[in-house]
C-alpha cells in the first residue's frame, strides 16, 4: 500500500498540470487576500469613524445639557422626558468615549463595554418586544439585536479585536425581512459586509467559497491527472501496475487515500497560506471569534471560528468522499476517467437542481445534494431559508455518509458483476 501511495505522490510531484492548478489556486488566494485587505476597515479608519461619532455624541450631550439648564432656569424644573433624553445622550457619549479609549489603547474589552453600553437600551426594548410580538420581521428584529448583543458580550469577555464597523446598523440576520426604507436596507446590507484581513478571518472567508462545489470541483480536477494517468480501460500504466504483485483493490484504496489525504494537505496548505498572509500583512487574528449558529424556533448558539472551521472541514471531507465515490463508480462503469469526471460533475449539478425542487418532500433531508455547501448547513441558514429544521449538520453528516457507503457498495457490486460477466 505504501509503495502505491508513494507512486501517487511522485506522480503529483512530477505532474506539471498539478503545479499549474496549484499556482492558479495560490494566485487566486493571494488576489482575494489583497481584495479583502483593501476592504478591511483598519484601526486608523475605525478610530477616525469613532472620533467623528464621539464628537457628534459630545455635541448632542452638551446640547442636551444646555437645553435642560435653560428649561430649569425658565420653568424651575425638568420633566421626565428631558431628563431621560439627557441620560441617553450622556450614556451614548460615555459609551463612545470608552470605545475611543478601547481602540486607542487596543483594550478590546473596554471597547466592547462601550458598545454594550451604547446598545443596552435597544436590547431592553427588544426583550420587551418579544413579550408581545412572537415573530418580528422588521429590522432590527429581536433575534438580530439579542444574538448580536450576546456575540458582543462573548467578544468582551475574550477581549477579541472587533471587525469594524460594529454599530447596530451593521447587524442583520435572516429574519430581518422588512426595512423602514430601501435606503436603510442598502446601508445595513453594505455595513454588514465586514472584512478582516487577519489570518483566521481570511481563512474563514476563503473556506466559505472552498468548502462547497467550487472546492469539490477544484479537487476533482486537481486529482483528475492522478486518475487519467493509469488509462483505465485501455493500454495505459494500469497494465503495468496489474502485472505487479498488487491486489486490484489496493489501486482503488490507494487512490482513495491519496485524494482524501491530498485534499487535507491542500486545506492545510491554504490554511497556512491564509494565516501567513494575514500574519504578515495584518495579524493572525482571533481563533475564538464567535460565529452565529441559527437554531430551531429563532434560537441561536455560537461556535468559535476554529471549531466552526474544523466542523466545516469534516463536512467538506464527506462531500469529497461522496464526490470521489461517484467518480470511482463512473470510472468502473465507463472505464474512461475523463468521461467519469464529466458524469460526476453532471450528476452533482443535476442532483442539486432536482433536490431544490424536492425540498418540500418529507424525506428530502435524506438527499445528499442538499449538503454540498458547508457554511449554510453548519450555521443553520439553510434550515432557516428552507423552513425545515431537519437540514442540520448532523443530518448532513449522516446523509452524506450513508450515500457514500451506498455508492461504494454499488461500485464494488459493479466490479464484481463485471468480473462475473467476463470471466
Amino acid at each position: 500500500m505504501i509503495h502505491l501511495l508513494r507512486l501517487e505522490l511522485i506522480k503529483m510531484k512530477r505532474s506539471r498540470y498539478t503545479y499549474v492548478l496549484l499556482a492558479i489556486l495560490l494566485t487566486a488566494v493571494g488576489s482575494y487576500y489583497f481584495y479583502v485587505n483593501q476592504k478591511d476597515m483598519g484601526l486608523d479608519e475605525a478610530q477616525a469613524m469613532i472620533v467623528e461619532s464621539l464628537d457628534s455624541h459630545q455635541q448632542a450631550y452638551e446640547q442636551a445639557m444646555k437645553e435642560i439648564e435653560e428649561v430649569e432656569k425658565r420653568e424651575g424644573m425638568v420633566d421626565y422626558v428631558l431628563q431621560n433624553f439627557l441620560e441617553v445622550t450622556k450614556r451614548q457619549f460615555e459609551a463612545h468615549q470608552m470605545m475611543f479609549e478601547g481602540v486607542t489603547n487596543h483594550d478590546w474589552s473596554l471597547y466592547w463595554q462601550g458598545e454594550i453600553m451604547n446598545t443596552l437600551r435597544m436590547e431592553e426594548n427588544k426583550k420587551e418586544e418579544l413579550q408581545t410580538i412572537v415573530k418580528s420581521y422588521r429590522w432590527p428584529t429581536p433575534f438580530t439585536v439579542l444574538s448580536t448583543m450576546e456575540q458582543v458580550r462573548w467578544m468582551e469577555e475574550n477581549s477579541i479585536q472587533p471587525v469594524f464597523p460594529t454599530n447596530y446598523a451593521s447587524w442583520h440576520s435572516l429574519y430581518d425581512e422588512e426595512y423602514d426604507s430601501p435606503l436603510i436596507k442598502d446601508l445595513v446590507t453594505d455595513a454588514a459586509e465586514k472584512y478582516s484581513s487577519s489570518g483566521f478571518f481570511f481563512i474563514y472567508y476563503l473556506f466559505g467559497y472552498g468548502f462547497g462545489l467550487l472546492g469539490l470541483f477544484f479537487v476533482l480536477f486537481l486529482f483528475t491527472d492522478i486518475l487519467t494517468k493509469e488509462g483505465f480501460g485501455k493500454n495505459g500504466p494500469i497494465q503495468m501496475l496489474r502485472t505487479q504483485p498488487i491486489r486490484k483493490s489496493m489501486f482503488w484504496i490507494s487512490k482513495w487515500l491519496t485524494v482524501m489525504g491530498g485534499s487535507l494537505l491542500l486545506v492545510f496548505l491554504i490554511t497556512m497560506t491564509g494565516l501567513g498572509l494575514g500574519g504578515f500583512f495584518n495579524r493572525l487574528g482571533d481563533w475564538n471569534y464567535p460565529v452565529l449558529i441559527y437554531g430551531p424556533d429563532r434560537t441561536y448558539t455560537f461556535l468559535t471560528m476554529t471549531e466552526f472551521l474544523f466542523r466545516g472541514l469534516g463536512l467538506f471531507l464527506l462531500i469529497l468522499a461522496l464526490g470521489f465515490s461517484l467518480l470511482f463508480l463512473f470510472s468502473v462503469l465507463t472505464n474512461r476517467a475523463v468521461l467519469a469526471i464529466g458524469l460526476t460533475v453532471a450528476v452533482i449539478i443535476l442532483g442539486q437542481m432536482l433536490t431544490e425542487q424536492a425540498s418540500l418532500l418529507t424525506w428530502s433531508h435524506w438527499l445528499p445534494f442538499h449538503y454540498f455547501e458547508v457554511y449554510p448547513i453548519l450555521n443553520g441558514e439553510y434550515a432557516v431559508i428552507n423552513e425545515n429544521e431537519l437540514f442540520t449538520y448532523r443530518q448532513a453528516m449522516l446523509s452524506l455518509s450513508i450515500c457514500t457507503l451506498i455508492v461504494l457498495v454499488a461500485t464494488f457490486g459493479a466490479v464484481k458483476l463485471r468480473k462475473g460477466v467476463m470471466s
Partner: protein
Amino acid sequence: MIIDVTGLKKRFKQQEVLKNITFKIEEPKIVALVGPNGSGKTTMMNCLMNLLPFQEGHIKILGKDHKDPSIFYEVSYLQDNRVLYGDLTGEDHLKFICHAQKLPIKKAKEVAEYIGMDSYAKKRVRSYSLGMKQHLLLAVAVLNNPKLILLDEPINGLDPTSSIQMRNILMDLHAKGTTVIISSHNLEEIDKMTNTIYFMKDGKILEESLEDFNVPHYTVTVSEPEKANAVFTAACLHVEQSGNRLIFSENKIPLQRAIDALNQNEIEILHIENKKIGAERRYMELFESELSS
C-alpha cells in the same frame, strides 16, 4: 510446471479470438509466438497475465492460479511502451517496482546499469526514444529475476544494436533458468533465439514445440526418388519428398547414413545441398494462403 493452459477460449462480443488453446511448458525454454496480426498472440498473453478475462479454460502459472497476484513476484510481462508514465523518470519506474517487489532499492541502479540505461534513468520517459523505452520496459521486466518472462513484440522498431542487446539479455536470462515467451514478427531474430515456436493463426496454435525444425537439414536430389523414398520408408525412416528431392533432418538420418543407403540400392545421387528450414520457411508454408493473397 511453468505454464499449464487448458481449453482457453476467449470471445470479444460474438467473435471468438482464442479457440480452445491448450499447451504446457514444463521446463525453462525460450518459446516464440509467431503469427500474423490478429492471430491472438497478444490476447493470449494478456489472458495468461490476467489482464483480460476469458470465457472458458484454466490457466496455471508456476503451479498457481493465474489470478493470484503473488505470481508476479516470479513472473514479468513486457508490454508496449504505453504502460509507462510519461511524466515519471526511468528511475521512478524502477524504484516503484523495487518497492512493489520488496526488493532493495539498489537493485534499481544495478539493473539500469545492466540494461545500459543508467545514463538517462533520471530523465522523464516522455523524452525517451523508442529504444530507450524498450530498454526501460526490459529493465522493469527483469528487475525481479523472473522465472517466467513474457514479451510482447519487444524488438519491433529497435535498431540493430538494440535488437542484439535485447536478444543477448534474453539469452542470458534463459541461461540462468528463466522461461521466455516472446511474440515477434522478426523471424530472423526468433531463429537466433529458439527452436520452439508456436505458430498461431485465427486464435489457434497450429504447431507447437517444433523441437527439431531449426536443426540442420539437407536436400538430396536423386535419379529415382520413388525408389529412394521406399528404401527409407522400409527402414521406418520418414523422409520428406518434393519432386526428385528428398529432405532429411540431420538429427534423424545423418547424411553419411543416407548416402550409404542410396549407394547400396544403386540410386544415383545428383546433388546434395545443406539446408536449414528456419522459422521463415515454416511460416511461409503454414501461411501460404495469406502470402499468396
